[in-house]
Every structure is written in C-alpha cells, then in structure tokens.
C-alpha cells in the first residue's frame, strides 16, 4: 500500500515560475486535500475535493489552482510563484473518519 504519494519532495523555484505539485492516492478515497505549512505553524487548507470533477477553496487559495480529473490524482498548480509561497505542502485523502497524509513537498521560491 503506497497510501498518498507526493512528488517532488523538494523544489526550488524562481519568482514568477510555475510548477505543479503532484499527489496520488491508491486507497480509492473520495476526499482529497492540499495543505501548506509555514515554518513553526499549523497546516492551512488550500483546496479540497470531494470527488472527481469537484473542487472547492479552502482557507488560503490565492495563487493556486487545482483539478481533479480522476479519483486517484489531485495536482496543485502554482502560477507565478512568489516568495510567500515558500512552504511545505501536504496532500491528504480521507474516507469517513480516517485521514492519510503524504510525506510533503518542500518548496522554496527565490
């Protein structure tokens, strides 16, 4: 069981560049989430999805976009990267009361 797989694990971006953070789960969970965690802080919800084709904004969606074309995949797109997007990004999936988190992507924007 792979669980929730995030790629890449680390990335350095220049200001203004774009990238996609990948997230895949193999548990057939309907619900998926993207969180960001700034140093020394808790997790903030960026976007979430309750199923293929359905996405909604979380607490801090500005500067990000998502899509959910399949149950398994939930990519997060950063357009025009800014230093304020330097953070660790966690993807998660859930079914009923159980949540599974990925290992995270550490992103630095310089």
């Amino acid at each position: 069981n792979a669980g929730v797989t995030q790629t890449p694990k680390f990335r350095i971006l220049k200001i203004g560049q774009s990238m996609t953070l990948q997230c895949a789960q193999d548990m057939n969970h309907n619900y998926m989430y993207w969180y960001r965690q700034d140093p020394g802080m808790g997790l903030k919800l960026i976007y979430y999805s309750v199923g293929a084709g359905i996405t909604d904004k979380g607490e801090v969606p500005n500067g990000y976009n998502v899509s959910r074309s399949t149950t398994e995949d939930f990519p997060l797109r950063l357009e025009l990267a800014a230093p304020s997007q330097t953070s660790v990004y966690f993807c998660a999936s859930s079914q009923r009361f159980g949540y599974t988190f990925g290992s995270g992507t550490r992103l630095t924007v310089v």
Partner: protein
Amino acid sequence: ELKVEQNPLFLSMQEGKNYTIYCNYSTTSDRLYWYRQDPGKSLESLFVLLSNGAVKQEGRLMASLDTKARLSTLHITAAVHDLSATYFCAGGFNTDKLIFGTGTRLQVFP
C-alpha cells in the same frame, strides 16, 4: 471564522513529569483529531475523538473531548524524551475539511 487554538505553544518539561495540552475550538465539531509531527516529517495520527466525553489512551498519552465546552485535551503522563515533537489538534466542524490548531512544540529534557 473557524478557529482552533492550542496552548501552550511551547512546552519544555522534565522527564517524569505530567502535563496537559489544551485545544479550544470556536464552533461545533463532530470529531477532533490529535497528530504528532517530528521535525521535517509528515503527520502521524494519534487519536480520533468522535463523541462528547470520548477518552482514548495510548501509552503515556491520553486524549479527551468535551464538545459542550468545545475543548479537547492531550495529557502526557511521566514524559520521556521520545515524546519530544510538535502536537496538533484538528477539528472537522461538521465538514470533511480539517482545520488545524497552531501546534504545541514539546521538548522533554532529562
């Protein structure tokens, strides 16, 4: 606006001592989670509390939930160094989105 507040934010405690971390939330939550995070790592699920009065214990950690007071506690008994980590509570607030507290950084010293 939903808020989840933890206190203390930092906790330095001696081995063998007892202490409690508090998690207050601002609106009704149908479930409350506790997670542990080691530096540079993802989140490890500790407890899921699903009803008023729920109490769960695992080793030296015990979590409880009082939905009327909108309060959950994580009690540490006879702390050991291996418990040093950051602990987060998170609430479901009648949705599938988890809203996280700011975390409590625990350091246990000899």
